[in-house]
């Protein structure tokens, strides 16, 4: 097997095990056993379990290029950019819910890992919301709402929607696709923060 193929197969198996068992719930030996190789083969590609975990995160995360494209393609007002970014994010989770499972595991088992998820996934959204709200409040496009709390509200509602649709497939929301659910929540969010285009 070529090095690139081997690396990809390691990442694919590690992702499933991290999603099912969490970071601390799986060892390098177990990943190697599942792959049918020796641990030494894994260490040829990744210096540690932590490095492997980070590589899995980077691999399954939505490519940054998609966010750049979402930011640049179309109207550049606050609600349009936020909607397009959210669409990219929702698509990435729908295509690969294992990421969401890894996040849930991280939240339960290790605060440092959970912060890593926040920094690499949610911070783009929370910073985008906060900075825009701070700047636009002065121009009267927002009501007087705390931007930090508003960004937490956004994160909470989108993540919960993805749990409902991609993890436990809630019957309650079966009439909505993940994208429809996210778009309706964004509308509610914009209303709640008093956004005036």
């Amino acid at each position, binding site marked *: 097997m070529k090095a690139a193929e081997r690396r990809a197969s390691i990442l694919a198996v590690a992702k499933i095990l991290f999603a099912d068992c969490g970071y601390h719930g799986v060892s390098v030996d177990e990943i190697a056993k599942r792959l049918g190789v020796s641990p030494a083969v894994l260490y040829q590609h990744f210096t540690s379990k932590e490095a492997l975990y980070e590589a899995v995160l980077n691999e399954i995360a939505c490519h940054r290029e998609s*966010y750049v494209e979402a930011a640049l393609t179309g109207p550049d007002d606050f609600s349009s950019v936020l909607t397009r970014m959210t669409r990219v994010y929702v698509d990435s989770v729908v295509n690969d819910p294992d990421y969401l499972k890894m996040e849930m595991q991280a939240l339960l088992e290790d605060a440092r890992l959970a912060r890593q998820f926040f920094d690499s996934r949610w911070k783009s959204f929370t910073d985008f919301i906060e900075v825009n709200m701070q700047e636009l409040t002065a121009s009267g496009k927002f009501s007087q709402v705390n931007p930090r709390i508003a960004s937490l509200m956004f994160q909470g509602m989108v993540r919960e929607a993805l749990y409902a649709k991609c993890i436990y497939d809630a019957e309650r929301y079966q009439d909505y696709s993940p994208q429809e659910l996210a778009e309706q929540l964004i509308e509610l969010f914009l209303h709640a923060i008093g956004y005036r285009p």
Partner: protein
Amino acid sequence: MTTNVDSIDMELDARGLNCPLPILRAKKSMNELGSGQRIKITATDPGSIKDFEAFCKQTGNELQETTEVNGEFVFVIRKAGA
């Protein structure tokens, strides 16, 4: 990286901002530049290297320099011709 002695026509401080804010600020700033003019952008997000590569790929502008000094990333971008 290429060495370019041309002048810088505009500077943008995107330090402390995460994707997509530096990209959006750069796009807005570059709307004020003429073809061939250059902007220097300073950012602190490590992901900004990939972001500005993607930015230039999508907009057709030329990423002329990428440097890192003490955790700060400096990009020089030349606006594409008409």
